[in-house]
């Protein structure tokens, strides 16, 4: 007992601390593990090998070109377990590294992926021929040969690999052209790519040929910008800046539509000695065509022919590979019309075609997460079915998305996806007509097209559409036609049409037709910065003679809210296009037809957001159900609780039976305590500090769970929270008051918390006992220790409980108050009530209590009526002149024994012999007797304890 008694508090404290440290460490480790798991490098489900593949291509197939390639091979692929392959092409200006993330994702899905740097870019040799069938496409054919030769790649026949071709922009064009040229391709996923390169760069929105198209100089310049500077310049110009808005192919997941990053990165390393300062790595014919077009702003038929050669438009009927076309709505380079033409051309042969639009593109990048996830899913589904042969047929339903708002957290756009069974094309499956009117207006064409209206900034479209004020028309250089506010919202999906009339003194006019969404506040938004350039010829000088022409506006997906107006603006300039240099003043009027808005009835695609809504509902339901279950279980447990009355203790206010309390660290505070308190008794629980008194009282108040043993109050088993506790008033471990309340308010607050009737409290009696006088209205924070103690006793007596339990009640009281307290307690223990007082002061117990229980080190040492305990004991302390002689004398007396005494005093058990006789014997023997002190039992018990160990055993 000794060591735990002194070391226990320390050890206990250590124990809790250790537990906390353990809990804390566990939490930290879990957190770190979670962080590592999230930040882990991509799992190595594949291996890569770099290769320089020399292919022979060119018109005769005899010009060797070195291609820089990386082959991604899933770990489990081998000659015995062949896997399907994907040929992954990058965008213009990129390299094989631009598609690394997509390649890794596809490889992780079990595809052998061959990514290569197209000729003319990066470390590959050769010149840029713009996906020419004789060059880039033939290179890709040789790569198919290379794939077929790999033992790990599945083949359909010798030399015919099982392969899909995936690519965005320049890579998408290649996918289409390769599929048209080589039947070995099993499926293609061309993204944000062109149908007719001449129309893409020389658009004409009234249906005119490319030779009369308006030159898209902004985009063309960015793509060709590297031509003049093969060295380093363009890398800084477009390579860096373009990479920014373009996109995050890494985060978009596999096959994110990744347009090129501009020519700069590619042309950084021109073949030694071959650098033509005007053309860089562009092939001479391509370069010459560009220079001609860019100089005049018009394309000659030969130039158009060259661009057509690089376009899928003429070879669509030869594509037999199932095609998934992904096109972006935020794309002023290759608008939706390009994919639409591809889809119609390929589907005409009966080849499976599926179209998907998303809210990114050359201007908008990979788009919102929901969109890039959808594109990723569609791509994998397409490849899995048509290349691997897994999964059901993807079907040909059409999915598209609409920007639904702004995401505050990600600082990006949010898009809602929609689905409809059939691809409706750009004309929609239904249409709304809106009258857009306005007078004929003069429109000035400034010399050399400067200043020019700004509709879109290449590669910054998403940014531009967000920032009001970037887009703008120049006063005097545009005409406006407006509708009335819409009575109901309209979801435009497709290419609207409008008709205009124009007059020009030169007979010719280049105009840009735009559709603005104007909100009630007057703010106008040009969806995705898209414009429809038109070149009208044969115009009269007077507007009255002008014939209406129908302009097909760029395809958009946009909801125009009710109350908004639609505005058609016809401008003479646009920064992104080449316009006539001669100053002229056109006249523009609305045509004879209303604005036609195509619509599509699509159903929203359920997204993860919907799932989360269900998760939230489920969570709430689970919380409610859990709460109900817990409450029901608690009720049931409560009902099952033993509410019977122990017959033996039915009338006993308190019976403690073999109580034991052992703390978690093994320290035994109470080992075996056993006593009873009967009505009318004032029982003193006496023991030194740390004897276990307080622990016993804590268990008694339901604050602590006993390890073993029971407590009965009026025959009812007492557990924490037992209702029978309401019959006990207590002061345990000192007062506990709300410091900011007065004494009286504290008592009232306490009684309010009991929920019992106000009249049962007997405040007056309690306050009288407290004896605080006027101080009862002062805040308890200002009370002295004694005042607080008296208030606590008064609180314990509120409601006159049948059992009053007071822990060291006289602590802090002055002697008159102690005397008063004694009387109060004795008076209290009448009418069947009982009092239990704990104390470490012998005198107090002796004077106050009728009964006493002496405890030490968790055990009962003595118990019984105080009179009996305090009553005279047979032992007597003698104070004599000669103790040694006295021992001899006493030893000779019959029945008298000398008791051992630790302090060397002479303590004698007279054992019935009268004390006077013993004294007479001693005197007779000539020994002087100074004092004869009768010993009392309680003191005996106490001294015995103190003798064993005078130190307290700590707080129990």
């Amino acid at each position, binding site marked *: 007992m000794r060591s735990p008694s002194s070391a226990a508090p320390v050890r206990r404290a250590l124990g809790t601390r250790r537990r906390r440290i353990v809990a804390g460490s566990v939490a930290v480790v879990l957190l770190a593990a979670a962080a590592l798991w999230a*930040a882990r490098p991509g799992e190595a489900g594949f291996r890569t090998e770099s290769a320089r593949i020399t292919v022979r291509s060119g018109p005769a197939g005899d010009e060797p070109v070195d291609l820089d390639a990386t082959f991604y091979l899933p770990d489990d692929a081998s000659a015995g377990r062949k896997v399907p392959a994907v040929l992954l092409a990058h965008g213009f200006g990129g390299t094989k590294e631009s598609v690394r993330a997509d390649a890794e994702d596809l490889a992780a899905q079990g595809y052998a992926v061959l990514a290569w740097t197209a000729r003319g870019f990066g470390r590959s040799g050769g010149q840029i021929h713009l996906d020419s069938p004789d060059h880039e496409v033939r290179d890709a054919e040789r790569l198919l040969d290379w794939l077929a030769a790999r033992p790990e790649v599945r083949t359909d026949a010798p030399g015919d690999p099982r392969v899909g071709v995936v690519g965005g922009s320049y890579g998408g064009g290649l996918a289409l052209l390769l599929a048209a040229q080589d039947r070995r391709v099993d499926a293609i996923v061309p993204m944000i790519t062109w149908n007719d390169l001449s129309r893409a760069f020389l658009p004409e929105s009234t249906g005119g040929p490319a030779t009369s198209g308006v030159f898209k100089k902004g985009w063309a310049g960015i793509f060709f910008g590297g031509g003049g500077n093969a060295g380093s310049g363009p890398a800084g110009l477009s390579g860096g800046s373009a990479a920014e808005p373009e996109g995050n192919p890494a985060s978009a997941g596999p096959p994110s539509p990744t347009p090129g990053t501009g020519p700069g990165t590619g042309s950084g390393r021109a073949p030694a000695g071959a650098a033509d300062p005007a053309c860089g790595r562009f092939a001479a014919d391509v370069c010459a065509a560009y220079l001609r077009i860019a100089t005049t702003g018009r394309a000659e038929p030969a130039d158009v022919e060259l661009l057509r050669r690089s376009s899928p438009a003429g070879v669509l009927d030869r594509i037999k590979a199932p095609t998934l076309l992904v096109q972006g709505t935020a794309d002023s380079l290759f608008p939706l019309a390009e994919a639409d033409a591809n889809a119609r051309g390929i589907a005409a042969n009966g080849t499976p075609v599926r179209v998907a639009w998303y809210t990114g593109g050359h201007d908008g990048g990979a788009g919102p997460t929901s969109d890039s996830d959808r594109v990723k899913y569609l791509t994998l589904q397409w490849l899995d079915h048509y290349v691997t042969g897994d999964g059901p047929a993807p079907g040909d339903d059409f999915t598209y998305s609409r920007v*639904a708002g702004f995401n505050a957290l990600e600082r990006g756009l949010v898009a809602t996806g929609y689905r409809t069974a059939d691809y409706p094309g750009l004309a929609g499956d239904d249409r709304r007509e809106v009258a857009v009117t306005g007078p004929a207006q003069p429109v000035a064409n400034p010399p050399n097209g400067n200043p020019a209206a700004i509709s879109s900034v290449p590669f910054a479209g998403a940014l531009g559409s967000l920032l009001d004020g970037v887009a703008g028309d120049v006063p005097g250089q545009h005409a406006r036609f407006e509708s009335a506010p819409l009575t109901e919202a309209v979801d435009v999906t497709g290419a609207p049409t409008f008709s205009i009339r124009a007059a020009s003194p030169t007979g010719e006019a280049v105009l840009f037709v735009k559709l603005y969404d104007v909100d009630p506040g007057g703010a106008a938004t040009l969806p995705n910065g898209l414009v429809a350039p038109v070149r009208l010829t044969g115009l009269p000088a007077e507007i009255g003679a002008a014939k209406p022409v129908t302009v097909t506006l760029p395809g958009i997906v946009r909801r125009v809210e009710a109350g908004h107006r639609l505005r058609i603006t016809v401008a003479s300039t646009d920064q992104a296009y080449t316009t006539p240099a001669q100053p002229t003043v056109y006249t523009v009027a609305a045509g004879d037809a209303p604005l036609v808005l195509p619509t599509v009835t699509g159903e929203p695609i359920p997204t993860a957001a919907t799932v989360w809504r269900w998760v939230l509902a489920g969570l709430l339901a689970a919380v409610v159900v859990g709460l109900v279950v817990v409450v029901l279980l608690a009720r049931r447990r409560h009902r099952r609780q033993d509410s019977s009355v122990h017959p033996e203790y039915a009338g006993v206010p308190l019976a403690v039976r073999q109580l034991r309390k052992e703390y978690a660290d093994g320290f035994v505070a109470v080992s075996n305590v056993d006593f009873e308190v009967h009505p009318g008794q004032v029982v003193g629980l006496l023991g030194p500090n740390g004897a276990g008194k307080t622990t016993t009282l804590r268990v008694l108040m339901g604050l602590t769970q006993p390890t073993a043993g029971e407590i009965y109050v009026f025959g009812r088993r007492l557990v924490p929270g037992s209702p029978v506790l309401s019959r006990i008033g207590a002061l345990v471990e000192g007062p*506990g008051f709300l410091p900011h309340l007065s004494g009286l308010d504290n008592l009232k607050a306490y009684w309010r918390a009991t929920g019992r009737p106000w009249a049962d409290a007997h405040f007056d009696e309690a306050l009288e006992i407290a004896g605080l006088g006027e101080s009862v209205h002062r805040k308890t924070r200002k009370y002295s220790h004694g005042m607080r103690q008296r208030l606590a006793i008064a609180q314990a007596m509120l409601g006159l409980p049948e059992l009053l339990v007071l822990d060291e009640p006289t602590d802090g009281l002055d002697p008159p108050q102690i005397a008063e307290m004694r009387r109060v307690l004795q008076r209290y223990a009448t009418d069947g009530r009982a009092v239990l007082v704990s104390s470490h002061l012998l005198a107090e117990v002796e004077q106050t209590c009728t009964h006493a229980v002496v405890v030490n080190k968790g055990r009962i040492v003595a118990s019984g009526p105080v009179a009996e305990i305090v009553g005279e004991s047979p032992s007597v302390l003698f104070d004599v002149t000669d103790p040694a002689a006295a021992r001899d004398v006493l030893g000779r007396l019959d029945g008298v024994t000398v008791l051992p005494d630790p302090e060397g005093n002479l303590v004698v058990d007279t054992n019935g012999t009268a004390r006077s006789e013993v004294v007479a014997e001693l005197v007779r023997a000539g020994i002087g007797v100074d004092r004869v002190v009768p010993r009392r039992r309680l003191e005996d018990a106490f001294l015995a304890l103190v003798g064993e160990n005078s130190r307290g055993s700590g707080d129990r």
Partner: protein
Amino acid sequence: MGQSSSTVGAAAGYRPSATLPFAAEFRRQASRRRTQLALGFMVLLPLIILIAFQFDAGDDDRDGGGGEFSSLADLATSGGLNFTLFSLLVSASFLLVVVVALFCGDTVASEASWGSLRYLLAIPVPRARLLAVKLLVALAYSALALLLLAGTALLAGTLRYGWEPLRSQVSAQLDPGEGLLRLLAVLGYLAVVLLAVAGLAFLLSVVTDAALGAVGGAVLLWILSSILDQIEALGAVRSFLPTHYANAWLGLLSTPVQTDDLVRGCISAIAYATLFWSVAFWRFTRKDVTS
């Protein structure tokens, strides 16, 4: 003596379900200086901001800042609704967290430190009931603080700047009626997000006897979570941080309303709060009260 089976053997008039009534606990807390100060400050803050705006010297210094803060700050004086929104914005990330942590973290720990907890348990107030009432009262005061802040700001802002449409950079302006609805939704979402703070503070309140430890601990952990949320390298782990969706209420300002992050934020907050409260109840109904 007892009226029902559950009160058999109890003193006359004692019913476990009648102990520590909500009103009694509400009064206990109402009488505390910290409650009065916290609520008073909620009223005072919008007025201080209002006065501060009066010192606007007019020199437009708009180069710095950026993001939704500067835009809302610029718009704060455009109407009562915008002023309220600004008041919420400046207090959402820290002040409201502290106030909620104060109400929920202090409630049990302070009773323990005063020593009055053991007397409540000896009444006896059933432990689960004690916690439930204390939690409900703490939540009620937290809600009251939120409403006082918003209410004062709305009243003062409307009196000063008028009943104008709600403007923001991410959407067109909203009619005052619609704007008020959005504002109420913002308040509702803030209240839900703060449940996670309430849960954390309440758990600490039950675990420790030091009121300061519970309140400070909750605020510290909240700040830690905010800091971790800034570290993009943590990737998906950040979605599990209780503060990750704290600003999702900005989505309520856009048109149409962006609810996806709100839903996830609600899930996160409710899950955390439920977890923390469950642990708190589990712990408190079993622990030895030694204070």
